[in-house]
């Protein structure tokens, strides 16, 4: 049952991604200044939003773990963070490719880019801390605390654009600027791809959760073998 739901969402995400790809590649016109490369934008920004959603989910799960002390919340926090890191990496890498084409360099030390990197490192540190602790309860507790601290950097990354002047383009989405800066068709496409990536993220999180459950069962069996 659970497996079927997972497959269902996965199929939906896949179909949506394919459809979006088709529209992006063939239906949308090239951008005036940038030419075809701007299409990477439809992955660049949605990937970042998806990562944000994952981090937010990790925060919620961490707080829930600390209040309820149920290891399932810990597993959710872990899975969400891992998937979030993957999507943040997509944002970073697409951004770097884009930058290489538009600016001629892979990286510029401006606030937006740097904060995206810091955020990534902070959550990578979270995974490192998890690896370093053996006892599952201790690991869950300490990493939950770290996750709460880590979220501060997500908040700063989101705000970075307002606090520092950057080389990186400013906000374009109408809900942040209150104005219509880009073509409504493009903005719709952004949301459509965001939905697709979000669905994909959900599937990935559930797969990780499933793996985690199996791992715990294996560990439990091994502990029992030790007691023999």
């Amino acid at each position, binding site marked *: 049952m659970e497996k079927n739901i997972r497959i269902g969402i996965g199929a939906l995400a896949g179909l949506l991604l394919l459809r979006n790809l088709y529209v992006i590649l063939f239906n949308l016109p090239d951008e005036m200044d940038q030419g075809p490369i701007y299409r990477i934008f439809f992955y660049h920004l949605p990937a970042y939003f998806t990562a944000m959603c994952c981090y937010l989910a990790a925060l919620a799960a961490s707080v829930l773990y*600390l209040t309820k002390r149920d290891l399932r919340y810990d597993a959710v926090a872990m899975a969400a963070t891992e998937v979030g890191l993957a999507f943040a990496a997509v944002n970073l890498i697409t951004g770097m490719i884009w930058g290489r084409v538009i600016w001629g360099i892979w990286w510029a030390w401006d606030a937006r880019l740097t904060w995206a990197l*810091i955020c990534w*490192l*902070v959550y990578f*540190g979270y995974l*490192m*801390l998890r690896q*370093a*602790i053996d006892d599952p*309860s*201790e690991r869950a*507790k*300490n990493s939950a*605390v*770290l996750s*709460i*601290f*880590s979220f*501060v*950097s997500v908040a*700063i990354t989101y705000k970075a654009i307002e*606090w520092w002047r950057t080389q990186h383009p400013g906000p374009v989405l109408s809900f942040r600027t209150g104005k219509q800066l880009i073509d409504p068709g493009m903005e719709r496409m952004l949301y459509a791809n965001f939905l697709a990536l979000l669905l994909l993220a959900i599937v990935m999180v559930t797969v990780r959760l499933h793996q985690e459950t199996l791992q715990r069962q294996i560990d439990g069996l091994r502990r029992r073998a030790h007691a023999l």
Partner: protein
Amino acid sequence: MIFLQVALKDLRSELRTKESLNASLSFAVVILLLFSFAFDPSGEAVAEFSGGLLWLVFAFAGALILNRSFARELPNDCLEVLLASPVSGAQLFLGKSIASFVLLLGIELLCLPIFGIFYNLTWTPRFLPLLGIFVLGTWGLTILGTLFSALTVNLSLRELMLPMLLYPMLIPALMAAMRLTTILLSGNDIGGDDLVWLRLLVGFDVVFTTLALALVETILVR
């Protein structure tokens, strides 16, 4: 005021041998030396990255000191005894933060004239605002560092994990402190646009002190 007694205890053990004070101070000087090899310090640009240099040194020396904050309690299982005493987790944490803070601030104030000599900078005219920045920046560094020290105290990779976790999260405070210190060392006053940095620094201290005090008991009691 029981946390003051914890702080006093820590300071007393630390100052008893003076080892750690001497070691951190000479470590700081050694890094200054290394930097002077890596980057040409004779150029005109020194004042422009003086704040950055100084705070890098503080961050490196700080990580070494903060690493010992809770680790100091391990050898004879003192941490367990302290946790079983009437001292609450938050008091213990506050006491340890204060001790590291005093220690680190002391080292920083000793580094400042040395730095001035090596890099040919004048710091005396704006000493008081500089001290203010040092206090704010160091508090941010110690509060977060002490928390992570508690978080990593039982890890075998402690020395590696602490800076790895600490530095990225510390960046806002470090950036602000670097920027403000550079301004002051270049002979300017803080004002106008730069107040953003000051606000960032204060905000950082307030947010993380609150979070840390709220969460530390959870970390310490397993």
